[in-house]
């Protein structure tokens, strides 16, 4: 299956995700632009995290989950039978809500993924480059052998971002990456996301609408129908969504009239 017009990295095409018999999201069509930040927003239960996880087949890890339709990555459907989900997740990385460094050294946290992928280059260089990319190098360069768990919450999340970029993905999925952080650490993560979008395509799920407004280029607003099934209501440039949403439901949600 290949109908990529060449401009998008990822495309959801008539995507439906089921958990058992429950349809969690329906008929999602969404195009993700390269080297840009796309925010997924919407009330709890609208399926935005489900959509995010569908972009790198993380839902496969949920036994009852089933995805219909297609998610194409550079035009190829990642749900085709001969596609290796591990390779999909290497090229489409993920950063989670709660920082989850391994109980290993800062160095090993970053090097781990690359080692697993058979990285043959100079590991010290890769670790430094990744930590610099995550704006953490200056803070940790003298204590690389200390445990990743010794860092503050904001530093741990940047370590997770360094770990994600060490395996050279094209896309980084972020599921509320700053929701467990204090406001200053949150702003640092937002700044970091702005910096790394020069090299990566980023999709971020956030409950914080101001964060979506501040930090993203495009915004997709999801809501639920009468069956509590999530659906994409409106997608557009972030500036348009937050100044002049075209859909009444979007307007009602972002201005706090519902949700």
């Amino acid at each position, binding site marked *: 299956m290949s109908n990529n017009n060449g401009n998008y990295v990822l495309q959801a095409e008539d995507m439906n995700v089921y958990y058992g018999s429950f349809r969690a999201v329906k008929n999602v069509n969404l195009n993700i632009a390269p080297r840009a930040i796309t925010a997924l927003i919407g009330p709890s239960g609208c399926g935005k995290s489900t959509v995010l996880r569908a972009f790198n087949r993380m839902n496969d890890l949920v036994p009852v989950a089933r995805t219909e339709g297609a998610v194409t990555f550079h035009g190829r459907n990642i749900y085709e039978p001969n596609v290796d989900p591990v390779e999909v997740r290497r090229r489409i990385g993920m950063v989670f809500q709660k920082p989850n460094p391994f109980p290993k050294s800062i160095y090993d946290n970053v090097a781990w993924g690359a080692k697993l992928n058979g990285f043959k280059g100079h590991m010290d260089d890769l670790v430094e480059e990744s930590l610099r990319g995550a704006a953490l190098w200056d803070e940790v360069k003298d204590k690389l052998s200390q445990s990743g768990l010794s860092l503050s919450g904001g530093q741990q999340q940047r370590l997770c971002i360094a770990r994600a970029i060490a395996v050279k993905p094209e896309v980084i999925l972020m599921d509320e990456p700053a929701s467990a952080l204090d406001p200053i650490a949150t702003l640092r993560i937002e700044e970091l996301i702005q910096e790394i979008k020069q090299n990566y395509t980023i999709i971020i799920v956030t409950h914080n609408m101001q964060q979506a407004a501040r930090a993203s280029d495009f915004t997709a607003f999801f809501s639920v129908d009468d069956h509590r099934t999530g659906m994409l209501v409106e997608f557009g440039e972030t500036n348009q969504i937050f*100044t002049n*949403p075209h859909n009444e439901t979007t*307007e009602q949600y972002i201005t706090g*009239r519902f949700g």
Partner: protein
Amino acid sequence: MARERYITQLNVLRDRVLKLGNLVEENVVRATESFVRRDLAVSAELIATDQTVNAECISINMAILQLIALQQPIATDMRFLAASLEIVDELERIHDYIKSIGKISTTLESSEIDALIGSLILQMGEKVRYMLHLSLDAYAKRDADLAYSVPAYDNDVDKLFEDANHRIIALIMADSTQATAANYVQWATHNLERSGDRAINICEWVVYLVTAEYREFDSEYEMPRP
């Protein structure tokens, strides 16, 4: 509704702008009537009222800035607050014109106003009041079509302004000792003409509020060639 207190604050703010607008609307007519009828007490009162209007404008603007800082409004709410800031500024400037007419009136002391000019000024005052009324109505109802209808009335104001100017020049030519007083009267008519333009500015912000697009209306007074 998730943000009831915030929605109430927005509504309270709108009502404050409308209340201020009503006062300015009334004072346009009071300014022209007191000017023509030589009621210097009312003229003096209008000059004094300007301070109250200025204070209220500042107070409303501070309330808007506070809402922006504390509630992070977006979409229509953000446009409403941005438009309200501008509209309050326009109302403040219109009341400056009202004060200026009051000052001219007191400067002229007991001089009589020519009957034709007086009639034209009263008509201008009524037209401007009506334009302002429609502008504020459009703001309250968030009605872009109504806002678009207002500039047509400005042509009437401009025509009255021109007629008044012709009469003023004729009076000066007939009796040059009247030149200073006539010049003052001309300033009063100019203030009214500018007030009409300011009402149109309000409409431009109403259109922005409703459509998210700011478009300048063509309201400039074209000076006739000598």
